[in-house]
């Protein structure tokens, strides 16, 4: 006779769940409680103020930075996946790109920001080379610490992430489908519109959301490139690192709670899209 939950499973599951509970749920719930009780009394004032003035700007900036880098990185990542799919040789290329992107998707952080400073900062080598060719990077208005600079750096981990997300879906496109379509008289454009794209789109949308979450939570890279940038992660740092008037702490809690809500909503959408993709694939 087997019980519904056997002892052994409980013995190992309880410490694990307690661990997650203590280090993830307790801080998160504690934070949520404080966000809704600014100054010790129940109220929505902190949650409201977190979306006003410069904090609203930070949310708008973070969302547009994350969306832009997700869209551009997503499209490029998808195109790389498709290009490699259609390319059978040289053989090494496919596996090199595969491995390198699996690595690069995790390479955000301090070193990445340094790499771009060495290339495109005011003392960067590319800045210099372009200057010799008569193109002034500084005069063009481009700067690593501004919006498009951050987008350019974020692409370094966004493109690989989308590539990794799309590879299984792209790999699922069978050669025979495009052949079947062309035998039935469909043009290549028609094949893409009616067969390939509908198959790729759910995975692509899920990937976009994942990239969005990834960029929204990125901290180290932006911190090095522009510690004063008006984006949510750096605002949180500013509020947390003292030098703030009492009561501003509640604001940090509220901003973080909004952030968590946004990320949670995005990931729930990813899960729904994945369920749909899975249904499709098994049909």
């Amino acid at each position: 006779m087997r019980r519904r939950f056997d002892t052994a499973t409980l013995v190992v599951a309880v410490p694990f769940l307690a661990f997650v509970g203590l280090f993830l749920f307790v801080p998160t719930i504690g934070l949520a409680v404080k966000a809704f009780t600014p100054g010790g009394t129940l109220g929505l004032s902190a949650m409201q103020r977190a979306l006003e003035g410069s904090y609203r700007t930070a949310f708008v900036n973070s969302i547009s930075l994350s969306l832009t880098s997700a869209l551009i990185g997503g499209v490029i990542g998808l195109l790389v996946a498709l290009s490699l799919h259609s390319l059978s040789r040289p053989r090494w290329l496919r596996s090199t790109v595969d491995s390198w992107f699996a690595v690069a998707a995790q390479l955000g952080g301090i070193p990445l920001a340094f790499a771009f400073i060495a290339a495109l900062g005011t003392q960067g080598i590319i800045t210099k080379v372009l200057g010799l060719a008569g193109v002034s990077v500084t005069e063009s208005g481009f700067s690593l610490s501004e919006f498009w600079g951050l987008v350019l750096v974020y692409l370094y981990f966004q493109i690989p992430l989308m590539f990794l997300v799309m590879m299984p879906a792209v790999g699922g496109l069978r050669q025979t489908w495009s052949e079947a379509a062309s035998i039935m008289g469909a043009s290549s454009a028609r094949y893409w519109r009616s067969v390939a794209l509908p198959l790729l789109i759910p995975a692509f949308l899920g990937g976009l959301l994942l990239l969005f979450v990834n960029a929204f939570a990125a901290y180290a890279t932006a911190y090095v490139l522009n510690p004063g940038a008006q984006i949510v992660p750096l605002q949180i740092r500013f509020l947390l690192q003292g030098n703030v008037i009492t009561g501003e702490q509640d604001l940090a809690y509220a901003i973080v709670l909004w952030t968590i809500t946004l990320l949670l909503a995005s990931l729930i959408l990813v899960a729904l899209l994945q369920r749909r993709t899975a249904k499709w694939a098994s049909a």
Partner: protein
Amino acid sequence: MRVLRNIFLAAVALYFLVPLLAMARFAFQSVPVVLLTPDKLLQGWSISGLLDVFANPEFQKAAITSLQLMVLSILVTLVLLLPVAALVEIRAPRMRTLMAGITLLPWVVPPIALVVGVAATFRNTVPWFLASPYSLVPFYVLWALPFSYRALDAGLRAIGARTLYEAARVMGASTFTIIVRVLVPNMVGAIIAASVLTAALVLGEFAFAALLLKETLPTFMAEFQRSEPRAGMALALAVMLLTAFIIWIGVRVLRRRGMELQAAGV
């Protein structure tokens, strides 16, 4: 079409290579960019910057801290996670969805968010806990979960853990014996993958350590580069290559066993 595709792939390759090369030049050539002319391209190359870093006592301290955090995080990950992953797979498959969901939660509460919650709750109740750099360990274990759990889960499925379990059970082995003497030796690949992915995460995490004022390799790096640009760049390049190498090992080990490193643990 083919030409366009090749140009596109070449451009992408350039985008990924150039920053690394620029970094290497900055780190190992002592000629400032302003003074760099085509005839000086081969002058002043040396690895002295990197050697300076290694000799720096503060670096050694930060590196040792990071190394300890890495080892501890891997140990906690394996001790805490492996038995759960194994028993869920072999005895409570219905809990798999729940586990998949729980292990994705760290994506919802990224370091920069959780640090605020930790400051809000632990700082008042258990201040001694946050005083030690080892307090980072549980959180690093947490953020590695999306990767470490999936690596272990993939490993368990690849070896047919349930069949192995039933077989060992019939022969009278206890659950503990089965995990330690049957499952673990069979899933070395997945264990290595889970470990190296955790290690890579510890090597790169900055937000949490910085905001809790802990001196780890990434926080040292960010500070050090301000005073020593060239040596700082050399260190960053070394850390980046080390991280890349570590993850690459994980990817290789998984692939050789027919498993994929799932994108971002999803």
